[in-house]
């Protein structure tokens, strides 16, 4: 039964980055597996040795050697300090490279589509500045084309995670953070906020729909035809604390809304400082 459970249960891993649907998640999975492999050699000896040692040298086993005064050996010291250090040095080199390679701010090759995400209580607003449309709780992206997501928050700090596509980045009020990702093929994926932000937190999930180039074009056309317009008043309504039962879409967006949302929370020039601080963790 346990086996059935394991086999059936492991299906859940298809929901996460171990079943990637884009290049970033795929690279993350590869790194994960690689580190797991290396670490097996590190933890293997301990996991085997600790119980083995305790069992073999148990009091009842009278055939084992007893050396109560033995407490130091140079070769052993070398063995427990040097190889782990070397492994960490190796991992460090690897980590340095991959942290840069998989930096969420690093643009992916190709012509990226620009999308701006605003974290609200308890929903996600996605603005397509070039296309002049916006959606709520549904992120539609063209498959096979990189996406450049700029994030901010109209409320408390939140964290966006699309497990099968890309890892998370915080969205913070008055600041802009960025995320680059891509979906390999058309499909629908889960997106969610994973930073607790109040009673509606568990409902703050959205569907990521990756569409083929043609379908994406059709979607854009359809959405542009919609009468709803996202202006300051509509945004103010949207920004109120609430959960939505279904996604929304806006056929038009007031230009520069994203920038104004950032500026709204920071009333003077200080916010460039914040945005820079968000990037460099300190005074610009």
């Amino acid at each position, binding site marked *: 039964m346990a086996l059935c459970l394991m086999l059936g249960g492991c299906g859940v*891993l298809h929901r996460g980055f171990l079943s990637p649907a884009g290049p970033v998640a795929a690279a993350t999975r590869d790194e994960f597996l690689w580190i797991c492999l290396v*670490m097996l050699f590190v933890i293997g000896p*301990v*996991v085997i040795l600790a119980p083995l040692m305790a069992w073999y040298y148990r009091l009842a086993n009278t055939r084992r050697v*007893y050396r109560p005064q033995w407490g*130091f050996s140079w070769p052993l010291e070398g063995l427990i300090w040097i190889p*782990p250090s070397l492994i960490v040095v190796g991992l460090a080199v690897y980590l340095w490279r991959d942290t*840069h390679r998989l930096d969420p701010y690093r643009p992916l090759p190709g012509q990226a589509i620009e999308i701006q995400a605003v974290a609200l209580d308890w929903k996600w607003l996605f603005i397509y500045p070039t296309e002049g449309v916006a959606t709520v709780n549904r992120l539609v992206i063209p498959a096979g084309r990189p996406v450049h997501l700029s994030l901010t928050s109209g409320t408390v700090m939140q964290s966006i995670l699309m497990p099968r596509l890309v890892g998370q980045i915080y969205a913070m009020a008055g600041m802009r953070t960025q995320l680059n990702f891509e979906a390999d093929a058309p499909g629908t994926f889960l997106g969610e906020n994973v930073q607790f932000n109040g009673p509606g937190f568990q409902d703050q999930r959205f569907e990521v729909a990756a569409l083929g180039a043609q379908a994406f074009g059709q979607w854009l056309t359809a959405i542009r035809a919609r009468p709803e317009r996202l202006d300051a008043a509509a945004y103010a309504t949207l920004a109120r604390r609430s959960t939505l039962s279904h996604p929304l879409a806006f056929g038009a967006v007031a230009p520069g809304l994203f920038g104004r949302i950032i500026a709204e929370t920071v009333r003077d020039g200080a916010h460039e400082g914040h945005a820079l601080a968000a990037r460099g963790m300190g005074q610009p």
Partner: protein
Amino acid sequence: MNGPDIWHILLGNLGWGALPFVRAWRDPSVSELIGAAAGSVVVIGAVAVLALLTWAKAWRYLWTEWATSLDHKKIGIMYIALAGVMLTRALIEAVLIRTQQATAINAPGLVEPGHFAQLFTTHGSIMIFFMAMPFLTGLINYVVPLQIGARDMAFPYLNSVGLWLTVGGAALMMVSLVIGAFSTGGWSGYPPYTELAFNPGVGPDYWIWAVTLSSVGSTTAGINIACTIYKMRAPGMGWMRMPMFCWTSLCTAIMMIFAMPPLTVATLLLAADRYAGMHFFTNGHGGDMMNYVNLFWLFGHPEVYILILPAFGVYSEVVSAFSSKELYGYTSLVIATAAIAVLSFTVWLHHFFTMGQSADVNAAFGIATMAIGVPTGVKIYDWIWTMFRGRVRLTPPMLLSIAFMVTFTLGGFTGIILATPPLDYVLHNTLFLVAHFHNMLIGGLLYGLIAGYMYWFPKAFGFRLNERWGRISVVCWVAGFYLAFMPLYVLGAAGMARRTQEVFDPAFRPWLLIALCGAATLFAGLISLFVQLYVSIRDRHANRVPVGDPWDARGLEWSVAAPPPEWNFASIPHVGRLDAFYWRKRNEGAYHPADHYHDIELPKESACGVIIGVAAAACGFGLVWHIWWMAALSLFVIFVTTIARSFMRDVTKIIPAETVEAFDREWLAQARAAHPVPRQLEQSEINEGLAEWIA
């Protein structure tokens, strides 16, 4: 002045709606009923305890022998008792959390979101600040002066103040169950969510003041422990002759001194925002919540090692004692401990790799984090080599140590995964992270604390704990951990967010059910600990170990009677080498009367610590509910007590030499009459605490 104004001055923002019973009456939902039930348990429990104490006429005894005591041993025991109470509450909350997630799959489950958020917030805050910290402070308090051959801590009065501040904070946590509601912002209380703009209620205020009291209490404990180890060691006990537990306690104390202020600053500045309308962490007006995140983790990461190092110390003592062998690689362990303490201050940023800083910064902190793995790994190998060619007795503390080595290594494995920024991006804030830190905190810290409790219990109370129930408990703690948290690793890798009150994916159900079973098993572990305590107290006469050395152990703490006299040592021992007592036993140097018995000066009981603790809790309560007179009056009481104490000159008492000699001679007679027990029989009733040793 009309009526409502007077009430507002007297009671601040308090109203009927603050009581969960009233809320449950108005809205009898399951969630509110659970809240009311929890409140009732606190009230009924408090009333029952008070009634029981009155019935048993124990008030005077408790007040004179315990509450006002400045004896480090009693303070240590009170710390651990507090930890036990808080562990029970927080573990019940953990079971509720797991029940909620396992039942709320496309369903509302037991508790509504706001209540659920309080559950995970109190669970985290209690486990860290009011379970782990008091537990380890209690162990250190009890053991360290005995291990270094001192009669008390360097500052016995400060010790009492620290204890009662912590108790005050814990009391605020308990009161929040009955009056008002606790924070929903998680144990880390990130603003701007915890700011007035988003959380106008009293919850975050409860959190702020409870944590601040604990933080100040821990700072005093850190100063005290560090000063004790620096200045109070017995003659001849050089640095490299200290037991390993003293080393880890010293490093923990130093880390407390440096790492607690950031927490105090973070909570006080958040309070400045909430109470004085300032803009440290607000959205807008120049506030910057990133400062809070940095401050919090500047405390939070060293805190992780503040917690784990004493547990490492316990393992060092336990593995060596129950392997009948000296600790392998003592110097290595000292270096590794110090290295961990230093490195722990350089890695705080790994708690927010996802805040958008540059890849250079993330990579640097990721590498620093991995680097900690090296000294930690060294320690684990040192314990393995300590068992090598030893005579290992698989007692409950030893079983916990072995389970720790395996479990903690698995946690290290996932720790390296989370230390890699690209992997952290996908796993941060998911159940993977939750599983990882529970892996470290249960498999590392809690096993160590319980092992320490079982190991030193006979020393503190003079009788051994029941071994059978000990084993049952160990099995529950170990199996429960794996059942509860291995599924969370899987769910986290599948992208399930932490702290979510409802789950929408039915595929998660089997894993959540297993995790629920695990939580129940862990709870069974706690229950069996209590059963063990009960059974052991019941059978205490058969299991007495008055001579004081039931395990043939090595440190000075085993060289005195069990329980030790208030003055610890009839004469301060001279220490010639590491494992002093072990060698004294083998060189016929143990169990001899002192050359001369002297009068011993000990700190006198003082009520000041209790007064300050109670006043601090009242001050916190007044601040939470904006009852300004109460806050001001309490502050005034604290101030006056402190000043009054500085005028007191009659703060010590003298134990006459005759009393010391009489006690010592009686104990030595017991030791002479006792039957030396071989290791094979140490769990049987013939163990009177005198070890049969082979030279």
